[in-house]
């Protein structure tokens, strides 16, 4: 197999000893079929056991190995080294505080995610013996794409709005709210609107579209947010016309 030597410049930070993050360079012999995560694993296994980063599945399903690779948020398990230059700069995901090395604190995203109630809110509880909830393929197709989110937070690292104002609910959480709003079994749209249709919700988005560019599963959060804007605009004017209606 062809080996190629690649210099990984990895941003290191240990909050207990370091004043501020600094780059450390490792020379890694890479195989033709390696992804960046393989190279980072080589550093950890062979060169420097103190390196900290998150990863689990190595197949773009778990969403934990997101990193800034040459300045772009990517899943390191999906980024092939053969497509990269001989120097690869690896940093923790932008717009999140660093916990240590490449590990970031995602608490803010987790709070935002919970705030949009990303779960089914059914009209009424149905006992198991009453059988399954029935949904047609057409009803499923309306929201299927938005179910593919793996919470990797690449979209938050890419979003200039989130970088500017961390109150912004952000792409993934809003796309998941949209996913449940579109679900024929769900009646929770009104309950989600207080967060979704606030100034810090969909209206903070200026449709740059970076979230959709970096999404590893082509969820298209930017599209979800624009669709939500249309629905919320209709709500807004309906609410003005029929103020007594329960919003």
């Amino acid at each position: 197999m062809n080996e190629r030597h690649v210099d990984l410049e990895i941003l290191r930070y240990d909050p207990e000893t370091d004043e501020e993050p600094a780059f450390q360079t490792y020379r890694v012999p890479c195989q033709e079929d390696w992804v960046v995560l393989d190279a980072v694993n080589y550093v950890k296994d062979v060169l420097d056991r103190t390196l900290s980063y998150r990863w689990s599945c190595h197949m773009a399903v778990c969403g934990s190995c997101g990193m800034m690779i040459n300045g772009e948020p990517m899943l390191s398990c999906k980024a092939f080294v053969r497509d990269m230059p001989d120097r690869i700069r690896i940093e923790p995901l932008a717009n999140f505080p660093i916990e240590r090395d490449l590990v970031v604190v995602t608490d803010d995203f987790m709070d935002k995610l919970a705030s949009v109630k990303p779960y089914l809110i059914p009209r009424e509880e149905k006992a198991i013996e009453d059988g399954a909830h029935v949904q047609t393929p057409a009803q499923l197709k309306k929201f299927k794409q938005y179910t593919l989110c793996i919470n990797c937070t690449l979209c938050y690292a890419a979003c200039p709005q989130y970088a500017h104002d961390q109150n912004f609910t952000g792409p993934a959480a809003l796309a998941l709210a949209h996913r449940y709003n579109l679900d024929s079994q769900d009646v929770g749209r009104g309950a989600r609107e207080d967060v979704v249709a606030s100034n810090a919700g969909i209206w903070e988005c200026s449709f740059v579209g970076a979230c959709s560019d970096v999404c590893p599963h082509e969820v298209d959060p930017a599209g979800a947010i624009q669709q939500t804007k249309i629905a919320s605009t209709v709500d807004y004017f309906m609410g003005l016309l029929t103020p007594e209606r329960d919003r």
Partner: protein
Amino acid sequence: MARSNKPIVWSLFAAGGTVAAFITPVMILVTGLAVAVGLLPAEALAYDRMLALVQNPLGKGLVFLAVFLPAWHAAHRLRITAHDFGIRADVAVMAVCYGLAALASVIAAFALFRV
């Protein structure tokens, strides 16, 4: 959290965007290029015919929509573009952008009302 009032400007932005994408190019073609390149005879846009168009109530309304909606679209787009360029004086930007759009709307309405 309180629900946003942005749907007011955003609905004008969205409607204006639709007009700007589908109608404005046709208007440019018809009023700006078609006669010049010989697609239409010159008398198609003769003064009398244009006057008759904007004197007709339906014609007035359509011309007003074709002018005022893209103006609000442009205003909101410029506000967001300013934001994306890092200009954070949103109230001042809003005043200038929406003020110009409002002015354009008033001038269009006044002009159409007078003919």
